[in-house]
């Protein structure tokens, strides 16, 4: 094994301990556009939670084009002769099937078959991959490299990233000079030039809508941002923060780490780890591809009756069931799970949620009851709302996969 973690030079070197959050290469632009000064910490960076209003930004995702600063997403470069066997032993999917210039969504587990994290694997060249994750986990990745001829290094600060999401994004990118971007299929990677800088584009995203993610050198960040803003002006482009994205991802049925599950490397209490089978990600687990970490535990789990499952809920009324406990009956006596993410979906016009539900109530079509608390001018009210277990995603427009996407 030869594995290394590069000594990363922080971008703003000023006494880092006094101002520990880093700024992304898009920070100056974000600062300019922020109307409500709402910044939050994300993986060591300061990023925008809301620019103007969450609603305005959300509707731009579903109706126009949006820019979202993805730079804090943790990125690892994985290369070497054993990159494929290494990754295939790391994740539960069969990555031998992943062709160059393609992306795959994956989860990976610890020995007990519990999810360490989820993320995307980009195959950039024959044996060079990029792994994008929510959490830093170089130790797990390096320990997984024991016995494999690979190098693993974190490259988060070397790559600025921008999510360009919404139904008009293909038109915006074309207007920005990315000729041929309309031919890119979902999960495909393409190489373009924007504002004179090389930009790697992947047709990926976290919104469940048409969209792309752009990867570039930090020095290209501001010119690319400006180029997109100029090209998208007539197509309703706007910068968005994490709140709007979170609503879109919930409609798309995507899981959010530390919200819908906690990394098995971070849980302290027993029984808080989640397997991919429990998270409804059984389709990501390939038992036939050969050994991977957690395989034996997951096989054993598969042979038992499932205890719980993360499912979608369609809840009566319009009050989001944030953190609601779930019950078998309206009398609220038998607790059978809890909501992990909830929102009123403006596009579906439904009150939706992701929830961890015990057997046998997780079956699609089951009725469960959600205990919702409402604060009405400082007076708390409790509602017991009927909810139905439904299939995910809640919102899956055909435009997200259409190739070529529609013109605007």
């Amino acid at each position, binding site marked *: 094994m030869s594995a290394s973690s590069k000594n990363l030079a922080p971008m703003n070197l000023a006494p880092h301990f006094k101002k520990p959050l880093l700024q992304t290469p898009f920070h100056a632009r974000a600062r300019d556009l922020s109307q409500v000064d709402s910044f939050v910490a994300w993986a060591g960076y300061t990023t925008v939670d809301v620019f103007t209003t969450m609603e305005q930004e959300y509707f731009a995702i579903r109706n126009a084009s949006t820019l979202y600063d993805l730079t804090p997403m943790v990125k690892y470069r994985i290369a070497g002769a054993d990159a494929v*066997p290494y990754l295939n*032993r*790391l994740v539960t999917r069969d990555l031998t099937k992943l062709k160059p210039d393609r992306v795959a969504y994956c989860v990976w587990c*610890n*020995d007990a078959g519990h999810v360490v994290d989820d993320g995307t694997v980009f195959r950039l060249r024959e044996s060079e991959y990029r792994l994008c994750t929510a959490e830093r986990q170089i130790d*797990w990745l390096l*320990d*997984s490299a*024991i*016995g*494999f001829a690979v190098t693993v290094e974190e490259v988060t600060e070397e790559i600025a990233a921008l999510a360009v999401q919404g139904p008009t994004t293909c038109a915006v990118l074309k207007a920005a000079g990315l000729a041929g971007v309309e031919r890119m299929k979902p999960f495909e990677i393409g190489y373009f030039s924007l504002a004179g800088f090389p930009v790697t584009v992947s047709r990926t995203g976290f919104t469940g809508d048409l969209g792309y993610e752009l990867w570039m050198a930090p020095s290209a960040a501001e010119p690319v941002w400006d180029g997109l803003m100029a090209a998208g002006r007539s197509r309703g482009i706007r910068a968005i923060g994490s709140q709007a994205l979170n609503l879109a991802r919930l409609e798309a049925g995507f899981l959010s780490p530390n919200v819908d599950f906690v990394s098995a490397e971070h849980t302290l209490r027993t029984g808080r780890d989640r397997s991919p089978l429990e998270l409804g990600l059984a389709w990501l687990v390939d038992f036939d591809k*050969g*050994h991977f*970490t*957690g*395989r*034996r535990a997951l096989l054993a789990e598969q042979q038992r009756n499932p205890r719980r499952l993360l499912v979608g809920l369609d809840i009566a009324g319009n009050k989001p069931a944030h953190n609601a406990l779930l019950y078998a009956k309206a009398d609220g006596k038998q607790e059978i799970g809890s909501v992990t993410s909830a929102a009123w979906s403006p596009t579906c016009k439904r009150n939706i949620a992701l929830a961890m539900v015990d057997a046998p109530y997780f079956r699609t079509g089951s009725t469960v009851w959600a205990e919702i608390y409402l604060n009405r001018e400082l007076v708390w009210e409790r509602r017991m709302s009927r909810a139905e277990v439904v299939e995910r995603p809640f919102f899956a427009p055909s435009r997200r996969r259409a190739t070529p996407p529609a013109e605007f």
Partner: protein
Amino acid sequence: MAQQQSPARYDFIVIGGGHNGLVCAATLAHAGRRVLLLEAQSRVGGAAATREFAPGFRVSSCAHLLHLMPADLIRGLNLTSHGLEFSAQGMPTTALRPGGVPLKVNQAGLSGGNPAGGDTDAYSAYVQRMRRFAGALAPLFGKVPPRLGTAEWSDRWALLGMAWQIRKLGRRDMRELLRIGGMNVFDLLEEQFDSDALKGALGFDAVLGTNFGPRSPGTVLTLLYRLAAEHAAGEAALSQPKGGLGAVCDALAKSATALGATIRTASPVARILVAADRAAGVELESGERIEASAVVSSADPKTTFLKLLGAKYLDTGFVRRVSHIRARGLAAKLHLALDRAPQFAGVEPASAKGRLLLAPSLNYLERAYNHAKYGEYSNAPAMEITVPTLNEPGMAPSGKHVLSAIVQYVPYALKAGWQDERQRFTQLCLDVLETVAPGLQGSVLHAELLTPLDIEREFRIEGGHWHHGELAFDQFFMVRPVPGAAQHATPLPGLYLCGAGCHPGGGVMGTPGRNAAQRVLKGSV
């Protein structure tokens, strides 16, 4: 390389023909299974072999005394009828003191070397108490360790049994055992004795073959461990097998063969074959593939999992634990071919035939250890010395002699590298020996030094640790070598461990091999 398909299909393949591999193979064969044992070298023995290190001079390669192999194991496998004989049994121990009178330190008591005031009485009380403790702990050795946190009644019974053994000692002894269990041997001996030579000799047994000095935490545990293993062995005490330690393995090989096992030497295993997530056989370095229903490895855990099997068949967390096993050896072996019998100052002929310890005080040991922490060797190493030719003249040409010494502490990764230092360190050992055996240097015909690095290369033990992994709280009993492989079964179905890396550990004991065979015969659980 052409791949031959072996015609025979075996129930079990045992990797490695050291004592544990041989015991395991013999025990499996005894149960009527078809067993193939594969040994890399041209003869069996592993690290428990006898080597000719100079023309006509033979010596035990690593351990040079037999004191841990259970008597019932020797009887059960009929080793005596398969040629095992002893040239000495019940050998005495003598603490050498440069410039002073040696002290005889035996179970029966102390003699010579005027031990300080109350030490004689204190010593006999100590021996009796430690013997009781050893007796309480000895039953742990013959069994596969239980697991914690399972719902299995067998595990619960085993844990209860352990607790009962200790409770049975009675209130005073139990309290004392629990008090000293986590201490270091320096503090224990300081509170009981005055004589430096006595403390040095007793402390040496706690740190022999370890990466510990007498002040290191957990050294009372290692001492109790050695005493309990000796207790579990029964009547053997310190013995010198006729023909060296290799003769033990020769007898084991004959026993295994007589029981129906097939032994192939000069057949190094390149890798363990896996089919449908199960160990399915092995591939030899020659390219030959041999199938079996299960594979039992007496190689050390790192070699077994990381080299022979490969991380790709294991989970990351398990590989992490295996790669963290502390298994760097710190003991070297010195072999001298002598023109005449060595004369140890003040040592009577009967004592010279026994075990001679060069550790005149606990501070001497601690200083010898200090250097090793920084990748250096001390100018005053500690030694366990035997002169096997005094008991068995045939180990050397007529009138000549062999001196065999375990030397501590000798780093695996010497900062200066062994290339240039080998000669210097060998000379240093001779200089130190000269202080207790004047005139020895002039009689040296040939000297051989086996550093931990040599032991790693020659015996294929990753890190060159005699015990295949440090015996310490975090690496012993039910977590030895690591959780997930501490009951001989491993995460890969059909692959088992039977070497010194398993409970109860190293030393020419054979117990890990026998326990493993019991576990293997139970099949998958």
